[in-house]
Protein backbone atom coordinates (compact mmCIF):
# COMPACT_ATOMS: atom_id res chain seq x y z
CA UNK A 1 0.00 0.00 0.00
CA UNK A 2 2.39 2.76 -1.12
CA UNK A 3 0.06 4.10 -3.78
CA UNK A 4 0.86 7.09 -5.96
CA UNK A 5 4.16 8.90 -6.24
CA UNK A 6 4.25 12.66 -5.72
CA UNK A 7 4.20 13.27 -9.48
CA UNK A 8 1.29 10.87 -9.91
CA UNK A 9 -0.68 12.75 -7.25
CA UNK A 10 -0.02 15.98 -9.16
CA UNK A 11 -1.01 14.26 -12.42
CA UNK A 12 -4.33 13.14 -10.94
CA UNK A 13 -5.12 16.76 -10.07
CA UNK A 14 -3.81 18.33 -13.28
CA UNK A 15 -5.99 16.06 -15.41
CA UNK A 16 -9.00 17.80 -13.88
CA UNK A 17 -7.96 21.16 -15.30
CA UNK A 18 -10.18 22.51 -18.07
CA UNK A 19 -9.58 24.74 -21.08
CA UNK A 20 -8.94 28.42 -20.32
CA UNK A 21 -8.70 27.85 -16.59
CA UNK A 22 -6.52 30.24 -14.67
CA UNK A 23 -4.53 28.05 -12.32
CA UNK A 24 -2.44 28.92 -9.27
CA UNK A 25 -0.03 26.24 -8.05
CA UNK A 26 1.28 26.30 -4.49
CA UNK A 27 4.81 25.48 -3.38
CA UNK A 28 5.81 21.80 -3.24
CA UNK A 29 3.93 18.96 -4.91
CA UNK A 30 1.37 21.32 -6.57
CA UNK A 31 4.08 22.88 -8.75
CA UNK A 32 4.54 19.41 -10.25
CA UNK A 33 1.13 19.81 -11.94
CA UNK A 34 2.86 21.90 -14.57
CA UNK A 35 4.90 18.82 -15.57
CA UNK A 36 1.76 16.83 -16.39
CA UNK A 37 0.99 16.40 -20.09
CA UNK A 38 -2.58 17.64 -20.51
CA UNK A 39 -4.50 18.91 -23.53
CA UNK A 40 -6.31 21.73 -21.70
CA UNK A 41 -5.01 25.21 -22.44
CA UNK A 42 -4.15 26.58 -19.00
CA UNK A 43 -3.00 30.01 -17.85
CA UNK A 44 -0.73 29.83 -14.81
CA UNK A 45 -0.95 32.70 -12.34
CA UNK A 46 1.56 33.36 -9.62
CA UNK A 47 0.95 35.56 -6.55
CA UNK A 48 3.90 37.79 -7.40
CA UNK A 49 2.09 39.09 -10.46
CA UNK A 50 3.15 36.72 -13.23
CA UNK A 51 0.24 35.79 -15.49
CA UNK A 52 0.94 33.14 -18.13
CA UNK A 53 4.17 31.56 -17.01
CA UNK A 54 5.47 28.42 -18.67
CA UNK A 55 7.86 25.58 -17.82
CA UNK A 56 10.82 25.92 -15.46
CA UNK A 57 13.83 27.65 -16.96
CA UNK A 58 16.58 25.27 -18.07
CA UNK A 59 19.65 25.36 -15.80
CA UNK A 60 21.92 28.14 -16.95
CA UNK A 61 19.03 29.96 -18.64
CA UNK A 62 17.36 31.43 -15.57
CA UNK A 63 16.08 35.02 -15.80
CA UNK A 64 17.17 36.57 -12.51
CA UNK A 65 14.16 38.91 -12.61
CA UNK A 66 11.61 36.15 -12.98
CA UNK A 67 10.37 33.66 -10.40
CA UNK A 68 7.05 32.07 -9.54
CA UNK A 69 5.50 32.19 -6.07
CA UNK A 70 7.76 29.34 -4.98
CA UNK A 71 10.84 31.31 -5.95
CA UNK A 72 11.55 28.99 -8.89
CA UNK A 73 12.87 30.48 -12.10
CA UNK A 74 10.14 29.95 -14.67
CA UNK A 75 9.73 30.97 -18.31
CA UNK A 76 7.01 33.08 -19.90
CA UNK A 77 4.50 32.06 -22.56
CA UNK A 78 3.80 34.48 -25.44
CA UNK A 79 0.55 35.66 -23.82
CA UNK A 80 2.26 36.51 -20.52
CA UNK A 81 1.66 39.77 -18.67
CA UNK A 82 3.15 41.09 -15.45
CA UNK A 83 1.27 43.07 -12.78
CA UNK A 84 2.17 44.29 -9.31
CA UNK A 85 1.22 42.59 -6.08
CA UNK A 86 -1.98 44.54 -5.44
CA UNK A 87 -3.29 43.81 -8.93
CA UNK A 88 -2.23 40.18 -8.63
CA UNK A 89 -4.30 39.74 -5.49
CA UNK A 90 -7.12 41.75 -7.06
CA UNK A 91 -7.27 38.90 -9.55
CA UNK A 92 -7.31 36.38 -6.72
CA UNK A 93 -9.81 38.10 -4.42
CA UNK A 94 -12.25 38.86 -7.22
CA UNK A 95 -12.62 35.14 -7.91
CA UNK A 96 -10.82 34.93 -11.25
CA UNK A 97 -8.60 31.99 -10.26
CA UNK A 98 -10.40 28.86 -11.49
CA UNK A 99 -8.42 26.57 -9.26
CA UNK A 100 -5.76 26.91 -6.61
CA UNK A 101 -3.79 23.76 -5.84
CA UNK A 102 -2.10 23.74 -2.46
CA UNK A 103 -0.31 21.48 -0.09
CA UNK A 104 -1.65 21.08 3.45
CA UNK A 105 -0.83 19.60 6.83
CA UNK A 106 -4.44 18.57 7.38
CA UNK A 107 -7.73 18.58 5.50
CA UNK A 108 -11.15 17.89 6.99
CA UNK A 109 -14.31 16.28 5.66
CA UNK A 110 -16.14 19.59 6.27
CA UNK A 111 -13.92 21.26 3.65
CA UNK A 112 -11.60 23.03 6.11
CA UNK A 113 -7.86 22.72 5.69
CA UNK A 114 -4.72 23.80 7.51
CA UNK A 115 -1.39 24.69 5.91
CA UNK A 116 0.05 27.78 7.56
CA UNK A 117 1.00 26.94 11.11
CA UNK A 118 2.91 24.03 12.56
CA UNK A 119 1.74 22.66 15.91
CA UNK A 120 3.38 24.58 18.73
CA UNK A 121 5.00 27.21 16.49
CA UNK A 122 4.79 30.90 17.22
CA UNK A 123 3.97 32.66 13.99
CA UNK A 124 3.43 31.00 10.66
CA UNK A 125 3.85 31.12 6.93
CA UNK A 126 0.67 32.25 5.27
CA UNK A 127 1.96 33.77 2.06
CA UNK A 128 -0.88 33.91 -0.43
CA UNK A 129 -2.63 30.80 0.88
CA UNK A 130 -5.44 32.48 2.82
CA UNK A 131 -6.34 34.82 -0.05
CA UNK A 132 -6.33 31.97 -2.54
CA UNK A 133 -8.24 29.62 -0.26
CA UNK A 134 -10.95 32.17 0.51
CA UNK A 135 -11.40 33.42 -3.05
CA UNK A 136 -10.48 30.90 -5.75
CA UNK A 137 -13.39 29.20 -7.51
CA UNK A 138 -12.02 25.79 -6.50
CA UNK A 139 -9.50 24.69 -3.89
CA UNK A 140 -7.71 21.42 -4.66
CA UNK A 141 -5.34 19.97 -2.07
CA UNK A 142 -2.44 17.55 -2.60
CA UNK A 143 -0.89 15.91 0.45
CA UNK A 144 0.53 12.62 1.69
CA UNK A 145 -2.33 10.63 3.16
CA UNK A 146 -0.64 10.22 6.54
CA UNK A 147 2.07 11.78 8.63
CA UNK A 148 5.42 10.00 8.91
CA UNK A 149 4.27 8.32 12.09
CA UNK A 150 1.16 7.02 10.32
CA UNK A 151 -1.27 9.51 11.88
CA UNK A 152 -4.00 10.57 9.45
CA UNK A 153 -4.00 13.97 7.69
CA UNK A 154 -7.58 13.54 6.42
CA UNK A 155 -9.70 14.25 9.47
CA UNK A 156 -13.24 14.91 10.60
CA UNK A 157 -12.05 18.32 11.87
CA UNK A 158 -8.69 20.05 11.62
CA UNK A 159 -6.62 20.09 14.80
CA UNK A 160 -4.28 22.81 13.51
CA UNK A 161 -5.43 26.40 12.90
CA UNK A 162 -7.27 26.45 9.57
CA UNK A 163 -6.37 28.42 6.44
CA UNK A 164 -10.00 28.66 5.32
CA UNK A 165 -13.28 26.96 6.18
CA UNK A 166 -15.42 24.75 3.97
CA UNK A 167 -13.60 25.50 0.74
CA UNK A 168 -11.85 22.27 -0.31
CA UNK A 169 -13.40 20.64 -3.38
CA UNK A 170 -10.93 17.86 -4.23
CA UNK A 171 -8.01 16.15 -2.51
CA UNK A 172 -5.27 14.02 -4.02
CA UNK A 173 -3.24 11.79 -1.71
CA UNK A 174 -1.01 8.82 -2.43
CA UNK A 175 -4.07 6.63 -1.79
CA UNK A 176 -6.64 8.30 -4.02
CA UNK A 177 -8.81 11.24 -4.95
CA UNK A 178 -11.30 12.43 -2.33
CA UNK A 179 -14.10 14.95 -2.00
CA UNK A 180 -15.05 16.40 1.39
CA UNK A 181 -18.70 15.48 1.99
CA UNK A 182 -19.51 16.95 5.40
CA UNK A 183 -19.22 14.12 7.90
CA UNK A 184 -17.17 11.89 5.58
CA UNK A 185 -14.97 11.86 2.50
CA UNK A 186 -16.17 10.49 -0.81
CA UNK A 187 -13.50 8.38 -2.47
CA UNK A 188 -13.72 9.43 -6.12
CA UNK A 189 -10.82 7.34 -7.40
CA UNK A 190 -8.53 4.89 -5.71
CA UNK A 191 -4.83 4.38 -6.30
CA UNK A 192 -3.87 1.08 -7.96
CA UNK A 193 -2.90 -1.65 -5.51
CA UNK A 194 -4.73 0.02 -2.64
CA UNK A 195 -7.87 -1.36 -1.00
CA UNK A 196 -10.82 0.55 0.44
CA UNK A 197 -10.09 -0.97 3.84
CA UNK A 198 -6.54 0.32 3.70
CA UNK A 199 -7.81 3.79 2.83
CA UNK A 200 -10.30 3.69 5.70
CA UNK A 201 -7.67 2.57 8.16
CA UNK A 202 -5.41 5.48 7.20
CA UNK A 203 -8.13 8.16 7.34
CA UNK A 204 -9.35 10.10 10.37
CA UNK A 205 -12.93 10.35 9.10
CA UNK A 206 -15.38 7.95 7.45
CA UNK A 207 -14.68 7.22 3.79
CA UNK A 208 -17.40 6.20 1.33
CA UNK A 209 -16.74 5.09 -2.24
CA UNK A 210 -18.34 7.58 -4.58
CA UNK A 211 -20.85 6.26 -7.13
CA UNK A 212 -18.80 5.32 -10.18
CA UNK A 213 -15.52 5.27 -8.24
CA UNK A 214 -12.64 4.50 -10.58
CA UNK A 215 -9.09 3.30 -10.25
CA UNK A 216 -6.51 5.96 -10.98
CA UNK A 217 -4.44 5.25 -14.09
CA UNK A 218 -1.08 6.74 -13.15
Amino acid at each position, binding site marked *: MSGLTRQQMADAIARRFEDDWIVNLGVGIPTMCSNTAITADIIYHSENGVIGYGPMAAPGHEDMH*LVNAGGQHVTLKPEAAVVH*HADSFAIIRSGKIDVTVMGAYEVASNGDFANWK*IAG*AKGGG*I*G*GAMDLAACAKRVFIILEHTQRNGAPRLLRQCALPVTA*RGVVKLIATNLGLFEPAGDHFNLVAIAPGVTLDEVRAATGAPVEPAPGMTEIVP
Partner: protein
Amino acid sequence: MARSKVYPGFAEAIHGIEDGSTIGFGGFAMPGVPFNLMKALQSSGAKGLTCVANTTGGAGQPRMPDIGHLVELGMVSKVICAFTAATRASDQLPFTKYYESGEVEAELVPQGTLAERMRAAGAGIPAFYTPTAVGTELAAGRETRVFAGREYLLEPALPLDYAFIRAHRADASGNLRFRRSQRNFNPIMAMAARVVIAEVENDIEPAGAFDPDDIHLAGIFVHRMVVIPPAPDGLWPQLREPRA
Protein backbone atom coordinates in the same frame (compact mmCIF):
# COMPACT_ATOMS: atom_id res chain seq x y z
CA MET B 1 14.29 74.17 -10.27
CA ALA B 2 13.70 70.73 -8.79
CA ARG B 3 16.55 69.19 -6.76
CA SER B 4 18.30 66.10 -8.11
CA LYS B 5 16.94 62.83 -6.77
CA VAL B 6 20.17 60.96 -7.45
CA TYR B 7 22.35 60.12 -4.43
CA PRO B 8 26.00 59.05 -4.63
CA GLY B 9 25.73 56.02 -2.35
CA PHE B 10 23.42 53.86 -0.27
CA ALA B 11 24.46 55.32 3.08
CA GLU B 12 23.70 58.85 1.82
CA ALA B 13 20.38 57.72 0.39
CA ILE B 14 19.14 56.27 3.67
CA HIS B 15 20.56 59.05 5.82
CA GLY B 16 18.18 60.41 8.43
CA ILE B 17 15.93 57.41 9.03
CA GLU B 18 14.33 58.26 12.37
CA ASP B 19 14.15 55.77 15.25
CA GLY B 20 10.72 54.20 15.34
CA SER B 21 10.14 54.52 11.60
CA THR B 22 7.99 52.09 9.66
CA ILE B 23 9.92 50.86 6.61
CA GLY B 24 8.61 48.71 3.79
CA PHE B 25 11.07 46.56 1.88
CA GLY B 26 9.99 45.59 -1.62
CA GLY B 27 10.78 42.33 -3.33
CA PHE B 28 9.51 38.78 -3.52
CA ALA B 29 12.01 35.93 -3.31
CA MET B 30 15.15 37.47 -4.89
CA PRO B 31 13.73 39.77 -7.59
CA GLY B 32 13.12 43.36 -6.58
CA VAL B 33 14.59 43.17 -3.08
CA PRO B 34 16.56 46.33 -2.19
CA PHE B 35 19.52 44.32 -0.90
CA ASN B 36 21.94 47.26 -1.02
CA LEU B 37 19.70 49.66 0.88
CA MET B 38 18.97 46.95 3.46
CA LYS B 39 22.67 46.36 3.91
CA ALA B 40 23.31 50.09 4.33
CA LEU B 41 20.51 50.25 6.89
CA GLN B 42 22.37 47.72 9.06
CA SER B 43 25.02 50.39 9.70
CA SER B 44 22.62 53.29 10.20
CA GLY B 45 22.12 52.93 13.92
CA ALA B 46 18.34 53.29 13.59
CA LYS B 47 16.38 51.67 16.43
CA GLY B 48 12.83 50.58 17.14
CA LEU B 49 11.97 50.03 13.50
CA THR B 50 8.77 48.46 12.25
CA CYS B 51 9.71 46.40 9.21
CA VAL B 52 7.19 45.46 6.51
CA ALA B 53 7.95 42.88 3.84
CA ASN B 54 6.70 39.62 2.44
CA THR B 55 8.97 37.65 4.78
CA THR B 56 11.43 38.15 7.61
CA GLY B 57 13.86 36.24 5.41
CA GLY B 58 16.67 33.81 6.00
CA ALA B 59 15.05 30.60 4.77
CA GLY B 60 17.14 30.22 1.60
CA GLN B 61 20.81 30.09 0.71
CA PRO B 62 22.79 32.16 -0.10
CA ARG B 63 21.40 34.44 2.56
CA MET B 64 21.06 38.03 1.36
CA PRO B 65 20.37 41.09 3.55
CA ASP B 66 16.94 40.65 5.15
CA ILE B 67 14.83 41.78 8.09
CA GLY B 68 16.34 38.94 10.13
CA HIS B 69 19.71 40.72 10.05
CA LEU B 70 18.17 43.93 11.35
CA VAL B 71 16.50 41.92 14.12
CA GLU B 72 19.81 40.29 15.02
CA LEU B 73 21.32 43.79 15.29
CA GLY B 74 18.60 44.85 17.74
CA MET B 75 17.19 47.49 15.40
CA VAL B 76 13.65 46.13 15.11
CA SER B 77 10.70 46.31 17.47
CA LYS B 78 8.07 44.83 15.15
CA VAL B 79 7.67 43.05 11.84
CA ILE B 80 4.58 42.94 9.62
CA CYS B 81 4.95 40.02 7.20
CA ALA B 82 3.16 37.17 5.41
CA PHE B 83 5.80 34.74 6.69
CA THR B 84 6.91 34.97 10.32
CA ALA B 85 7.88 31.31 10.76
CA ALA B 86 9.20 28.56 8.55
CA THR B 87 6.63 26.41 6.76
CA ARG B 88 8.71 23.25 7.16
CA ALA B 89 9.00 21.87 10.67
CA SER B 90 12.68 21.18 10.01
CA ASP B 91 13.51 24.84 9.24
CA GLN B 92 13.94 27.77 11.57
CA LEU B 93 14.07 31.40 10.46
CA PRO B 94 16.72 33.66 12.03
CA PHE B 95 13.84 35.82 13.25
CA THR B 96 12.14 33.02 15.19
CA LYS B 97 14.40 33.08 18.23
CA TYR B 98 13.80 36.80 18.82
CA TYR B 99 10.08 36.43 18.28
CA GLU B 100 9.75 33.50 20.65
CA SER B 101 11.73 35.34 23.33
CA GLY B 102 9.36 38.30 23.02
CA GLU B 103 12.14 40.65 21.99
CA VAL B 104 10.37 41.51 18.76
CA GLU B 105 6.66 41.74 17.99
CA ALA B 106 5.14 40.29 14.83
CA GLU B 107 1.95 40.88 12.91
CA LEU B 108 1.25 38.00 10.56
CA VAL B 109 -0.76 39.18 7.54
CA PRO B 110 -1.96 37.24 4.51
CA GLN B 111 0.03 38.34 1.48
CA GLY B 112 -2.92 39.79 -0.44
CA THR B 113 -4.13 41.66 2.63
CA LEU B 114 -0.61 42.98 3.17
CA ALA B 115 -0.47 44.25 -0.41
CA GLU B 116 -3.97 45.72 -0.25
CA ARG B 117 -3.38 47.44 3.10
CA MET B 118 -0.45 49.30 1.57
CA ARG B 119 -2.36 49.97 -1.63
CA ALA B 120 -5.14 51.44 0.56
CA ALA B 121 -2.67 53.69 2.36
CA GLY B 122 -1.43 54.92 -1.00
CA ALA B 123 -4.99 55.46 -2.16
CA GLY B 124 -6.29 57.45 0.83
CA ILE B 125 -8.52 54.57 1.93
CA PRO B 126 -8.33 54.17 5.73
CA ALA B 127 -9.93 50.70 5.80
CA PHE B 128 -11.56 48.10 3.57
CA TYR B 129 -13.26 44.72 3.83
CA THR B 130 -11.75 41.46 2.58
CA PRO B 131 -12.95 37.84 2.57
CA THR B 132 -9.43 36.63 3.32
CA ALA B 133 -8.78 35.07 6.76
CA VAL B 134 -12.46 34.99 7.76
CA GLY B 135 -13.02 32.02 10.06
CA THR B 136 -9.34 31.69 10.92
CA GLU B 137 -7.27 32.42 14.02
CA LEU B 138 -6.25 35.73 12.42
CA ALA B 139 -9.86 36.94 12.56
CA ALA B 140 -10.36 36.05 16.21
CA GLY B 141 -11.91 38.94 18.13
CA ARG B 142 -11.80 41.24 15.11
CA GLU B 143 -14.55 43.14 13.36
CA THR B 144 -16.32 41.35 10.54
CA ARG B 145 -19.33 42.30 8.50
CA VAL B 146 -21.68 40.53 6.12
CA PHE B 147 -22.20 41.93 2.61
CA ALA B 148 -24.61 40.07 0.31
CA GLY B 149 -24.56 37.03 2.57
CA ARG B 150 -20.78 36.65 2.77
CA GLU B 151 -18.62 37.51 5.74
CA TYR B 152 -15.70 39.94 5.40
CA LEU B 153 -12.96 41.15 7.69
CA LEU B 154 -12.25 44.86 8.21
CA GLU B 155 -8.61 45.68 7.45
CA PRO B 156 -6.87 49.01 8.13
CA ALA B 157 -4.54 50.79 5.73
CA LEU B 158 -0.83 50.27 6.35
CA PRO B 159 1.02 53.54 5.71
CA LEU B 160 4.80 53.55 5.60
CA ASP B 161 7.30 56.21 6.57
CA TYR B 162 9.85 54.85 4.11
CA ALA B 163 9.75 52.44 1.20
CA PHE B 164 13.01 50.82 0.16
CA ILE B 165 12.58 49.52 -3.35
CA ARG B 166 14.61 48.16 -6.25
CA ALA B 167 13.99 48.98 -9.91
CA HIS B 168 15.50 48.03 -13.23
CA ARG B 169 15.57 51.44 -14.91
CA ALA B 170 14.99 55.04 -13.83
CA ASP B 171 14.95 58.45 -15.43
CA ALA B 172 16.20 61.61 -13.75
CA SER B 173 12.69 62.63 -12.70
CA GLY B 174 12.27 59.36 -10.81
CA ASN B 175 10.05 57.51 -13.25
CA LEU B 176 10.78 53.81 -12.72
CA ARG B 177 10.51 50.61 -14.67
CA PHE B 178 10.67 47.14 -13.13
CA ARG B 179 11.55 43.99 -15.03
CA ARG B 180 9.36 40.86 -14.88
CA SER B 181 8.46 39.70 -11.37
CA GLN B 182 10.77 42.34 -9.92
CA ARG B 183 7.71 44.60 -9.86
CA ASN B 184 5.85 42.74 -7.06
CA PHE B 185 5.38 44.90 -3.91
CA ASN B 186 7.65 47.73 -5.10
CA PRO B 187 5.17 50.17 -6.71
CA ILE B 188 2.51 49.77 -4.04
CA MET B 189 4.99 50.20 -1.17
CA ALA B 190 6.17 53.37 -2.90
CA MET B 191 2.62 54.68 -3.11
CA ALA B 192 2.10 53.95 0.61
CA ALA B 193 5.26 55.71 1.79
CA ARG B 194 6.13 59.24 2.79
CA VAL B 195 9.70 58.88 1.48
CA VAL B 196 10.69 56.45 -1.26
CA ILE B 197 14.28 55.35 -1.75
CA ALA B 198 15.10 53.29 -4.83
CA GLU B 199 18.17 51.32 -5.79
CA VAL B 200 18.39 51.09 -9.56
CA GLU B 201 20.09 48.43 -11.68
CA ASN B 202 21.03 50.66 -14.60
CA ASP B 203 22.46 54.14 -14.97
CA ILE B 204 19.92 56.91 -14.49
CA GLU B 205 18.55 57.96 -17.88
CA PRO B 206 17.52 61.49 -18.85
CA ALA B 207 13.92 62.60 -18.23
CA GLY B 208 11.91 61.59 -21.27
CA ALA B 209 13.84 58.35 -21.83
CA PHE B 210 10.66 56.32 -21.28
CA ASP B 211 7.40 56.60 -23.14
CA PRO B 212 4.90 58.04 -20.60
CA ASP B 213 2.70 54.98 -21.26
CA ASP B 214 5.47 52.61 -20.17
CA ILE B 215 6.23 53.87 -16.68
CA HIS B 216 5.48 51.47 -13.81
CA LEU B 217 5.90 54.01 -11.02
CA ALA B 218 5.60 57.74 -11.66
CA GLY B 219 8.44 59.97 -10.54
CA ILE B 220 6.20 61.94 -8.17
CA PHE B 221 6.41 58.92 -5.82
CA VAL B 222 10.21 58.60 -5.87
CA HIS B 223 12.41 60.82 -3.72
CA ARG B 224 15.91 59.34 -3.71
CA MET B 225 17.73 57.04 -6.14
CA VAL B 226 21.08 55.26 -6.13
CA VAL B 227 22.64 53.32 -8.99
CA ILE B 228 23.76 49.84 -7.93
CA PRO B 229 27.43 49.22 -8.75
CA PRO B 230 28.53 45.95 -10.35
CA ALA B 231 29.29 43.03 -8.01
CA PRO B 232 31.07 42.63 -5.70
CA ASP B 233 30.50 46.26 -4.60
CA GLY B 234 26.81 46.01 -5.39
CA LEU B 235 24.51 43.18 -4.32
CA TRP B 236 22.62 41.38 -7.08
CA PRO B 237 20.13 38.49 -6.99
CA GLN B 238 21.74 35.05 -6.81
CA LEU B 239 20.52 31.64 -7.83
CA ARG B 240 19.13 29.88 -4.79
CA GLU B 241 20.85 26.74 -3.73
CA PRO B 242 18.58 23.71 -4.23
CA ARG B 243 16.78 22.47 -1.11
CA ALA B 244 17.56 19.07 0.33
